[in-house]
């Protein structure tokens, strides 16, 4: 058993060297957290992880990040700055956090638009004002739409329930689909987002190519994901917190140690900021850039299809 350990360790170190190739998954061996598995096994295991965490996903997010994940998602949508009429595809959107924020944002922009419009119409007759309100009532989103796409049925189910509970129905649709092979036509969407999802995709390069395909020319790609902390002291504290506290939280709150162990390991395995930027450029995006949040614990990558 010990010799086998050493062999595996060597393999992982060899694999560790050409990290840029990891996204292309040259060989059959891949990583699942710190374990090495085949591509098919990885997809299967990740599916099971999210199947089991789906119900407690939001509670766990709040406890692990002490609620800060909400701020990160807010920043993403603010960066997106969608105007009414935008068509958004939120991939790996699971429980709908980005979609709901998008709807809220667009609604408030629309409200402001309407108010500005009415301010300029000071001398309208009552009939005209009435007509204005009538047509705008059915357009509170201004034709904006968001499609939430996720590979996992349980996550979608949880998302739909949440939408119903919070009262979101207009301009929202839920689609079961794989980020590596999206069930949409070319040149369809204005914005593509993937928040905390790309880390779980087995072939990141394929997902990026698909993102490029389904975006309209002029469309924007936005990716919110855990990334690498360069500050050494902070990095050690972060590691300590991740490996010592998070699986414990998973066990105590969700009764599931292993899924959260996978979570923190998968963060370590994910390419750092510059590498991801290169991969996005490889897929054909221009003006690719990234913004670190919280010293690199999280990063938002952005690119345009021109």
């Amino acid at each position: 058993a010990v010799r086998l350990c050493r062999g595996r360790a060597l393999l992982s170190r060899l694999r560790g060297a050409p990290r840029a190739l990891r996204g292309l998954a040259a060989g059959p061996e891949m990583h699942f957290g710190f374990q090495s598995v085949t591509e098919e096994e990885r997809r299967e295991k990740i599916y099971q992880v999210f199947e089991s965490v789906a119900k407690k996903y939001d509670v766990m997010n709040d406890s692990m990040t002490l609620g800060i994940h909400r701020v990160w998602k807010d920043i993403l949508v603010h960066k997106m700055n969608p105007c009414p009429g935008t068509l958004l595809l939120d991939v790996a959107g699971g429980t709908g956090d980005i979609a709901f924020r998008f709807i809220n944002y667009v609604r408030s922009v629309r409200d402001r638009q309407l108010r500005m419009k009415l301010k300029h119409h000071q001398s309208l007759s009552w009939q005209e004002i009435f007509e204005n309100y009538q047509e705008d009532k059915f357009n509170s989103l201004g034709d904006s739409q968001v499609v939430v796409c996720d590979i996992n049925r349980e996550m979608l189910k949880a998302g739909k329930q949440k939408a119903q509970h919070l009262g979101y129905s207009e301009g929202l649709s839920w689609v079961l689909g794989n980020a590596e092979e999206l069930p949409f036509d070319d040149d369809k969407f204005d914005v593509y987002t993937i928040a905390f999802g790309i880390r779980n995709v087995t072939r990141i390069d394929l997902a990026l190519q698909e993102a490029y395909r389904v975006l309209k020319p002029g469309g924007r790609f936005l990716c919110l994901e855990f990334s690498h902390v360069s500050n050494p002291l902070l990095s050690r504290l972060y590691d300590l917190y991740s490996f010592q506290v998070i699986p414990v939280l998973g066990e105590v709150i969700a009764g599931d140690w292993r899924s959260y162990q996978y979570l923190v390991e998968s963060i370590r395995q994910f390419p750092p900021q510059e590498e991801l930027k290169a991969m996005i450029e490889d897929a054909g995006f221009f003006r690719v850039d990234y913004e670190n949040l919280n010293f690199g614990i999280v990063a938002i990558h952005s690119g345009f299809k021109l």
Partner: protein
Amino acid sequence: PGTARLRHSDPRGWDGHGGEEEVEEKEGWHRLYPGHIPTSPLQKALLAAGSAVMALYDPYRHDMVAVLGETTGCLALPNLRDKMKHHPEGYRILQERPRIRLSTLDTSRLRGLPDGSLGREYVRFLEDNKVSPDTRMPPKFVDDEELAYVIQRYREVHDLMHTLLGMPTNMLGEVVVKWFEAVQTGLPMCVLGAAFGPVRLSSRKLQVLATELVPWAIRSGLNASCVLNVYYEQRWEQPVESLREEIGIFPPP
């Protein structure tokens, strides 16, 4: 061999890439038994605290009670294991590792045994309270394979405790059994459960508990020999009364 493996659960091994190799070994190869999750001392401490809070907050989280037992049992479990080793019947149990599960129990045969026998009363207890021995959590955080069996045995024998003490599975009955087990095993989880369990009881029940049941449970616990040293699976025909006398449990009030 046990301590050499434990070395790898040092938290210092957890940094980024350097630790990757060790962690990979740990994940795949340092599992001492199926379901084992190796944990560092810090993780055990956090788990103990977290599970204690969660168990009190949500009494239906039996898995939290189990985790609490595993993470705090590091002194009591070796003690129990040694008690078993030095007793002929206990030693046999450690060797043969019997498991109490519905698949291994022949419930129809047990039901056919005369009233008052251990087997008959045990099956009656399971049916009356609608419980099954299969719902016991397997251990995860015990870092020794033999101790993991000891705690597993303790969990599976719990229902037999109920039968021997004549206590139902309501809150009151559970607390009484916990007091007995706390005295018998010294497991901190039992002590905590015995101390904090009554918090949720009405004052009338508390009175009965304090004046009659707990003193009896303590006296029996102190007087009785180690309950884990009884090979229950070979004593189904024995009358409960006789088994009580043999172990040293006083008749229930």
